[in-house]
């Protein structure tokens, strides 16, 4: 048998169909040539996939860097096969109970690898997954093990999109697993637009059955604002900055008192880099949901490396910028609506009078809104403008409600309901529509969830969230008056669009969906920390039936309800409850010992 046949035989023993595809393959994905060490190396589109000097040494170095993350019992999934040097090196170094799976989106790639060199016997331990994203994800899940995704990036460049799709399937799978309970500490801002989103997220997590410690810094608002009244603005800014530092320490104290599995900060939360570095040192898993336009608010640059995960409402440019600034994982996660808050309501007649109009806009007086909204004046329709920060907009004074006072969420919902055409104009500091407008604001989801009709400026990411039949758009400020006139003339069409929008929100765009995705994402990347929790592996019943659980601990676990999550401190508490004269087994003593060290580990203050 030839070298190629020998290699392909290793695939055939596990995946005959893939072996056939490799046999029939033409190769040519990589250009293979000898390295200085004499072994074959390869290029992909002119760039080296493996070292031009010593691909084996390079692979060993890469594998060594992966080892600390991998936990016994996991399925190691490798993206970026190349000439399989990395797979071989990993198998040699990983000691413990591991299963191995190589993702092969293109059999021609494997054809090159099988032709280039004789594979080591270590590859006999690897399984192979090919086909579309869903098939590969199903194959990964079929192993029924915690999943560790690894990527050999130089060879994985051609698998980027399929990897993203596979991760999405895995997230969904994780999210659909019942019962797992995660403890999330959610850090809210002192004030601002992300504060209600923090509250919606906390509620959503609780509705999903998770435990939430909401660290609500809005209670410090009046103190924070009072610092801003110092006569010298420099003093005010300096004191507010120090105050934010203090709140950061308050957060640390709260985390130390009740350590969570995940620390999730919402944009504008008072966190500073040293705090994040300390949390990282203490092995806390941190994430930020940056529900801001990264082009306008740029403080992410100072914090990028501090959070382990970033969730953002924008895509490519945003992700690239964050990664350049040091972020390790960046994931797209649009905002959403809370249907318990933004819902269709019935208004009393006087409320309809007060809040009702043909056209309404609710929001702050950004420059583009000041420039565009006057176009809605002087038409045969009624127009009401709600919200604050409209000082100096004299031409809009006649339509400004409540003299530009800030209005609460409940009032917003009433305005949405009482208005025929709700205008949703994303904020921008320029004169017209934001030419780079990509993300979709929370208002879009809130209007839709309220069952209200909206006319929204066109956004690049809107199309993947709503269809044209669910949300109506205008592409330029000049189209706006005509669009308003048209939709005012079509009440039935408006109703149909609003109904469809609400249906879509309920199906896909609530904060429960977002939190499920967020935890799913964390679970895929941190199978040992979040994935196992979501999968219910810490539940008393599962722990008790685990073969590695000693009998004396299993009997302790039997005292808990089977679906209750049991942590080290719970088990230790159960042992301590035996009383001062109890005779303890060796494993019980060890549990108490680990618990004593756990308490020390959490010393953050």
């Amino acid at each position, binding site marked *: 048998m030839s070298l190629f046949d020998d290699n392909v035989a290793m695939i055939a023993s596990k995946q005959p169909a893939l072996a056939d595809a490799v046999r029939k393959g033409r190769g040519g994905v990589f250009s293979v040539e000898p390295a200085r060490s004499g072994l074959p190396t390869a290029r992909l589109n002119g760039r080296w996939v493996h070292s031009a000097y010593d691909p084996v040494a390079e692979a060993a170095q890469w594998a060594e860097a992966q080892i600390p993350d991998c936990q016994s019992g996991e399925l190691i999934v490798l993206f970026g096969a190349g000439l399989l040097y990395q797979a071989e090196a990993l198998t040699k170094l990983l000691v413990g109970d591991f299963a191995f799976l190589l993702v092969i989106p293109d059999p021609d790639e494997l054809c090159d690898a099988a032709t280039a060199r004789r594979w080591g016997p270590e590859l006999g331990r690897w399984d192979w997954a090919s086909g579309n994203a869903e098939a590969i994800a199903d194959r990964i899940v079929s192993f029924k093990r915690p999943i560790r995704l690894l990527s050999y990036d130089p060879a994985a460049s051609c698998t980027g999109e399929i990897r993203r799709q596979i991760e999405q399937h895995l997230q969904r799978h994780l999210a659909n697993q019942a019962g797992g309970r995660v403890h999330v500490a959610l850090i809210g801002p002192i004030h601002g637009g992300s504060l209600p989103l923090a509250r919606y997220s906390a509620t959503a997590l609780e509705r999903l059955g998770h435990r939430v410690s909401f660290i609500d810094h809005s209670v410090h608002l009046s103190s924070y604002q009072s610092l801003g009244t110092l006569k010298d603005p420099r003093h005010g800014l300096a004191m507010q900055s120090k105050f934010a530092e203090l709140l950061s320490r308050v957060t640390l104290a709260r985390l130390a008192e009740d350590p969570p599995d995940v620390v999730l900060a919402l944009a504008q939360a008072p966190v500073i880099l040293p705090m994040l570095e300390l949390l990282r040192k203490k092995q806390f898993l941190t994430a930020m949901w940056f529900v801001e336009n990264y082009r306008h608010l740029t403080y992410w640059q100072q914090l990028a490396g501090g959070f382990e995960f970033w969730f953002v409402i924008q895509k490519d440019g945003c992700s690239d910028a964050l990664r350049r600034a040091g972020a390790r994982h960046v994931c797209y996660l649009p905002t959403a609506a809370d249907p318990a808050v933004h819902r269709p309501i019935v208004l009393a007649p006087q409320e309809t009078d007060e809040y009702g109009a043909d056209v309404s806009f609710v929001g702050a007086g950004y420059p583009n809104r000041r420039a565009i909204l006057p176009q809605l004046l002087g038409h045969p329709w009624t127009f009401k403008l709600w919200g604050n920060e409209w000082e100096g907009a004299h031409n809009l004074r006649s339509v400004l409600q409540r003299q530009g006072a800030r209005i609460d969420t409940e009032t917003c919902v009433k305005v949405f309901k009482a208005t025929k055409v709700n205008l949703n104009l994303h904020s921008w500091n320029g004169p017209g529509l934001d030419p780079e407008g990509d993300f979709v604001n929370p208002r879009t989801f809130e209007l839709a969830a309220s069952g209200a009709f909206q006319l929204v400026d066109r956004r690049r990411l809107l199309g993947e969230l709503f269809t044209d039949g669910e949300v109506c758009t205008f592409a330029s400020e000049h189209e706006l008056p005509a669009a308003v006139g048209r939709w005012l003339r079509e009440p039935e069409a408006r109703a149909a669009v609003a109904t469809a929008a609400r249906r879509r929100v309920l199906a896909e765009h609530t904060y429960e969906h977002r939190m499920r995705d967020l935890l799913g994402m964390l679970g895929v990347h941190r199978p040992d920390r979040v994935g196992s929790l979501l999968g219910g592996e810490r539940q008393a019943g599962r722990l008790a039936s685990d073969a590695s659980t000693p009998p004396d601990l299993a009997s302790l676990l039997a005292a808990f309800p089977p679906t209750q999550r049991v942590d080290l401190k719970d088990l230790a508490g159960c042992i301590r409850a035996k009383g001062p004269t109890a005779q303890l087994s060796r494993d019980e003593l060890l549990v108490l010992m*680990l618990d004593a060290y756990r308490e020390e580990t959490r010393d953050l203050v």
Partner: protein
Amino acid sequence: MSRALVIQLARLGDLIQTLPAITALAQRHGFAALDLLCAAPLAPVARWFPGIDRVIEWDGASWRRYAEQWRSGGVRSLDEARRSMDELLDPRYDVVFNLNQHPRAILVAHLAGREVVGAGETGPLSSDLPPWGRYLRGVARNRRGNRIHLADAFCGLCGVTPPAVVPRLTVPQKPVPLDLDAVGSSTGVWVAVIVGAGAPERCMPIAVWIDWITSFLDGCPTGGVVLVGSGTERERAAAIQDGLPPVCLSRIWDACGRTDLQQLVVLLARCTWVIGADTGPLHLAASVGTKVMGWYVARARVHETGPYGEGHWIWQADRNPPQTWPVRESLTLLASLEAEAASPEVDGWSLWTSRFDRWGTFYVTPGADDNAPEREEAWNACSIGFPLGKDRPVAQSF
């Protein structure tokens, strides 16, 4: 023949103060093996303890890691903890003498041995303290007049009376950096100055050190001063040297951050006196037979942490921070070795000197009596169940 283990997981000073208990245990019981479990960084010191067969290193960092792994591995993370414990402490000891009252040490004691003596002897979950444990806790909490030295209370915890002779560490044979070889090699008084202290509030001001060293070298035509401290105290040592008259510098040796623990002991043993406020090195010096003069401020209390043995001197500050420092008085004392000549009436300070008898080490003001009845009473109260002056009978198992 039984195997025994002593557990001392606390810091350097406490470890050195365990030496009398270990000596007494080794002398009084015919153990087949007497091992010592201590914090890993202190193991090199523990290996010089006479009477110890094996020093076992306790690596707290590993245990923190096992605790951390529980979050990812759950019950499975017990495997590694179990393996680690087996490697360290298997087979189990017949008796474990535990000197630390914190839960981790008590748990280790019960994991390591069949019978526990000392802290935790009534069970791993029991909050009852043995009499000597209650005594030490009372001293720590109330700062009440304590006349039993901590090292002797450790003996009590182990069920033995103090050894008849002050035990000494064997000075290791280890070369020091070449330029420090001159330390102690010529006649005259050699003083090791411990430039820092465990906590900033216990540090002597740099200006006081400059004054003290200048005056000492002025008054003592031969000998020299060795500056001792860790790497983090190098700047302090440099600041002291910057403030000294140039003529003094040829008699100053700066060892800060340049020695390991063994080399430090070698240097301390070559000196006539060791002075300073950091109790750990003071204990170390006393344990190799060097006379110690300590300046105790803040939480450092002479009766609890005065160096063990006879002939040491401690200046105890009555207030924190002290308003003045007994520079002249301590120099006079050093020159004459007579407390009366030192005029020890210094505002805000009291002077104590150590003595040694059948109840161990004790500190008294110069000229005071030996308060033996008071110490005998304390031993009587704490040594319930075995006759005063006798060792506690060992259990049937050993």
